[in-house]
């Protein structure tokens, strides 16, 4: 008795909403190896609970997008995946966070070793004040590669993978800061993949860029998917539909009594399902632009 009624309600809602144009490809039928297994994770900054009870799997050679409004904890969860949150005084992670079966927060785990396998690209392009060459060679060098020929090879391969080689091959000795925003972000991606990580985390990698540069980065993300597992935080829902295989939608839980806002994971699944057939009304409101 209840089922058809609900359907009617949903239909009336959806007809009033603008239809979201998506270019989602067919969902990945069979997910690959689980790279991250996040189970009931809560993250605190001091006494402030930023995210509560997040559980989701992240699969190999896929692009997983985290979407949601500001303060929903997408970046916080992302930065917990390679222990960048350790750099924030007072940050604490509770729950199970496993990477290829290993507990990322076990006592004997070295954050530096974690980050060598799980790289990160930041919102604001942040090349070092060094030459383009030295920027890319930085990671290999701290990992002990000193051989000039070997470094040359890595720099060229990384810049090619980041679709930047042709633009900079004649000025590798120039400052990385002299590049445009889009180029600088591709340099940062080249720098990240130069250490041959397993996973690349991207925290709104295109939000500081113009549309053309954004498309270049998105092409690059689709290209990188072949060799890397990618997790991307984005405010841009079209971007999520364009680049990701799976999407996780985060929202804010407001407790008006204590005046606290905590991020929660509302739902996750194949991107097409999240955007075209969301199970949760909050997701539907968000992806159709009714909220946030």
């Amino acid at each position, binding site marked *: 008795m209840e089922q058809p009624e609900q359907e009617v309600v949903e239909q009336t809602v959806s007809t009033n909403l603008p239809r979201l144009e998506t270019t989602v490809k067919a969902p990945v039928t069979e997910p690959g190896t689980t790279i991250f297994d996040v189970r009931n994770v809560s993250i605190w900054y001091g006494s402030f609970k930023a995210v509560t009870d997040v559980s989701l799997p992240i699969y190999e050679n896929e692009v997983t997008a985290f979407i949601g409004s500001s303060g929903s904890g997408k970046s916080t969860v992302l930065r917990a995946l*390679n222990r*960048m949150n350790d*750099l924030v*005084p007072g940050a604490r992670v509770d729950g199970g966070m496993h990477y290829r079966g290993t507990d990322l927060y076990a006592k004997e785990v070295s*954050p*530096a*070793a974690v*980050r*060598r*396998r799980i*790289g*990160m690209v*930041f919102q*604001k392009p*942040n*090349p*070092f*004040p*060094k*030459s383009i060459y030295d920027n890319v060679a*930085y*990671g290999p*060098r*701290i*990992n002990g590669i000193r051989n000039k020929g070997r470094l040359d090879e890595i720099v060229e391969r990384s810049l090619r993978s980041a679709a930047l080689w042709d633009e900079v091959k004649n000025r590798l000795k120039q*400052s*990385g*800061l*002299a590049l445009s925003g889009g180029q600088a972000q591709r340099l*940062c991606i080249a*720098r*990240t993949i130069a*250490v041959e990580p397993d996973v690349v985390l991207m925290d709104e990698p295109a939000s500081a860029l113009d549309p053309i540069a954004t498309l270049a980065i998105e092409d690059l993300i689709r290209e990188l998917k072949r060799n890397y597992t990618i997790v991307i935080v984005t405010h841009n829902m079209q971007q999520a539909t364009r680049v990701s295989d799976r999407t996780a939608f985060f929202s804010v839980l407001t407790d008006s009594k204590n005046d606290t806002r905590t991020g929660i994971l509302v739902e996750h699944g194949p991107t097409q399902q999240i955007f075209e057939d969301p199970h949760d009304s909050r997701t539907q409101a968000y992806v159709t632009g009714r909220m946030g």
Partner: protein
Amino acid sequence: MTVASEQQTVDLREAGGWRRSKNRIATFVMWFAFVATLIPLVFVLYTVVAKGIAAISWSFLTSGPIPANVAPPGAAGGMGPALIGTLEITGFAALMAIPLGVLGAVYINEYGGKGWLARLIAFMADVMTGVPSIVMGLFIFTIWVLHFGYSGLAGSFALACLMLPIVIRSTYEMLLLVPNELREASYALGSTKARVVLTVVLPAAIGGIVSGALLAVARAAGETAPLLFTILTVEATNTNLFSGANTALSAQIFYNAQSPFVGAEQRAWGAALTLIVIAFVLMLAARLITARFTRYTR
């Protein structure tokens, strides 16, 4: 209906009255301050050059011993021993103070965080900046000279004590300017903290650190008071920093300028000019080094 015809013209002329006057007054005060700053600067430089240039010659700069007070202008010998003394005493002081100061600042900014030790060191460094230089001289006199005698080394200790807080302060300010994004970028590539400091933070700040350090050196090179109690004075060159009394340009200015003889007075001016040139060269070097190291920052 008739909106267009009722449209008022917009007044885009410069605001008159009190606002314009305030602007003029502020501009005038600025120019006045600029000129007022220049007056002592130019006057000091002009006086020292005009009075000192006559004394300067190759033998004045290189040969010794330092002539006695009563010797006439152009007497045999020169300020060679004092120049050598200044270079070795200040040089060794820099060798002690700069690494220590830079490492101290690295601790305060990168490792200490908001801990009590880092805050204590930063606070003490600030207090030390305000300690008069003569107090530093007395301090070294009581803890070193009384036990081991006068030497260039004692002078180096006193100058190092003066330079240390300046180096800590200037380095700390430079490290604060290094954007946190750069540290994060390095951590994200798997760097340990020491690596981040050595390969990202210090290189990004090196230009400012070097110029701050050279400013401290230039200041110390001109200090007189801390040397009076620590190196005494000699007329002949003493290349041994570690034993025996020594001399320095600043000390020679002090002794010679006190005496009533024309020759001594002229040699004091000559020494003063030499000291100013040394400071000038150090500043120039600071600029060049800063430019060299910051060629990648834009």
